[in-house]
């Protein structure tokens, strides 16, 4: 079970968030709050709006309507680069690493622009962060990395921006049992540093082990919220995943 030094104060508040793409409502009145220093699981069947939620929070595109508050201030329409600097970090399911740069340089991008600072400082932060996530030989080119290492690099990149809250978007996808264990440990380490974590996952073992609380999305709305034990027994949640008759 995750650590219990959770503060009651919300670090992120999402109010009635709607996001339309053409006629399709990817988010349809989603509302939730994330408490400081918790590990929140974000669950839901495919197409429920989980990635859209993260994209809107992180500023990739603005919501069609609704409000987002980060540490009490409204950040609803701020662009992604500002939000990154304010402390909202995230990983991508499918990101293209910079192939012309080495591993360390990839992470440096996060350090340079997520914080400001000189090239030297960014280099130092990058190297420290790589060590933290367990990546060695940082001068390697991207083509020489394993799939797990690439995932770690993406996390390192996000960490290098010094986030206060970090969204992990399906980082466990495609990992075997040992690799998943390694990742779980890494997420714990990140959490121990005081970073709030929102984790989108389909691998339930991970959710069970890491999270205090989960929210479940379906059709762009939050349909359930609470500790995993309770939520996983909620008939609404079960039918969302398995269909009406289950």
């Amino acid at each position: 079970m995750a650590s219990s030094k959770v503060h009651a104060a919300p670090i992120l508040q999402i109010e009635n968030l709607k996001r339309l793409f053409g006629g399709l409502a990817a988010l349809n009145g989603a509302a939730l709050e994330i408490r400081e220093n918790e590990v929140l699981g974000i669950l839901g069947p495919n197409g429920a709006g989980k990635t859209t939620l993260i994209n809107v929070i992180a500023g990739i595109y603005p919501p069609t309507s609704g409000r987002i508050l980060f540490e009490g201030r409204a950040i609803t329409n701020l662009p992604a680069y500002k939000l990154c600097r304010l402390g909202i970090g995230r990983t991508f399911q499918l990101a293209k690493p910079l192939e012309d740069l080495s591993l360390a340089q990839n992470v440096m991008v996060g350090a340079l622009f997520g914080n400001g600072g000189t090239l030297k400082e960014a280099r130092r932060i990058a190297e420290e962060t790589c060590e933290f996530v367990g990546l060695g030989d940082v001068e390697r080119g991207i083509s020489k990395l394993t799939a797990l290492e690439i995932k770690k690099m993406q996390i390192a990149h996000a960490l290098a921006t010094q986030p206060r809250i970090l969204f992990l978007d399906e980082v466990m996808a495609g990992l075997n049992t040992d690799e998943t264990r390694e990742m779980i440990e890494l997420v714990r380490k990140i959490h121990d540093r005081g970073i709030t974590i929102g984790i989108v996952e389909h691998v339930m073992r991970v959710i069970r082990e890491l999270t205090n609380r989960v929210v479940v999305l379906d059709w762009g709305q939050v349909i359930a919220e609470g500790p995993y034990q309770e939520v996983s027994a909620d008939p609404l949640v079960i039918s969302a995943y398995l269909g009406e008759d289950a």
Partner: protein
Amino acid sequence: MKTRNRWILYAFVTALLVTLPYYTGTYLLSVAGTILIYLALALSWDMLLRSGQLSFGIAGFFGIGGYAAVLIFTNAGLNPLISILAGGAVAGVFALIIGTAVLQLRGMYFAIVTLALAEIFRVIIRNLPDLTGGPEGLVLPAAIFSGDSTSTFWLILAVAVTALIASEIFQKSRVFFALTSIRNDEVLARSSGINVFKYLVIVFAVTSAIQGIAGGAYAHVHGFVSPEGSFSLDFALLPMAMALFGGMHTTWGPVLGAVLLGIAAEFLKLQIPYGHLLVYGVIIVIAIILFPKGIVGTISQKLQAR
């Protein structure tokens, strides 16, 4: 190559170039000057390309710089050198304004708008004869430095060196990381805290200013500007071919391309007086198909693979 050795090499090459007028004749000097102008253009084009944005606007800002330099010199009576810098500044300001409007666009839309730029500038200038001399252009009373080939060469060398320094700054500072990230995946770049729009506008303005300075220098050296001459697509075609051939996204690629193709062009001009531009088109096509990374890029790729 060790840093110290590299600086020695730079010093040596610089000394070689600066003293070039003392042991070459005027013909070779003017060829070298032309190569250096194209080198500056090729570098400035590549610098924007590093952000992933393709611009055909070189000819446009080159011409604007030329006209601005001539007009400022003629009307404000400023020192020709100052007017060249002013020409660059004007081009840069134009680019700033245009960029702010147009750099929301990406890919082919941006590229095509820049292709239209030279046309637009040309039409505007052709239609304001009182200001710009119309279709005949403007002739300066005298070329800069009264046409002295040594001083002219040094002027052009200074322009080329400026472009070189700018390119290296782009390659060695945080700008390098920003541009490479933007080129790779803009969404990822934004999520890394990069203000993409700001970087693109600044790069566009700086590179256009360099093109403007080159245009101003060229105008003063040759002593005239004209709608057809100053905005000719040659000033886009040749630098692009040079940067492609030598290797995109590097400083030394465009330099190598400019030197090699520039020398080759001189030979060709002597053999086939009318067809040599054809070769540039062929070079672009072949380079894109067979070695899109250019000489420098292909070599460094092979080295990395080892």
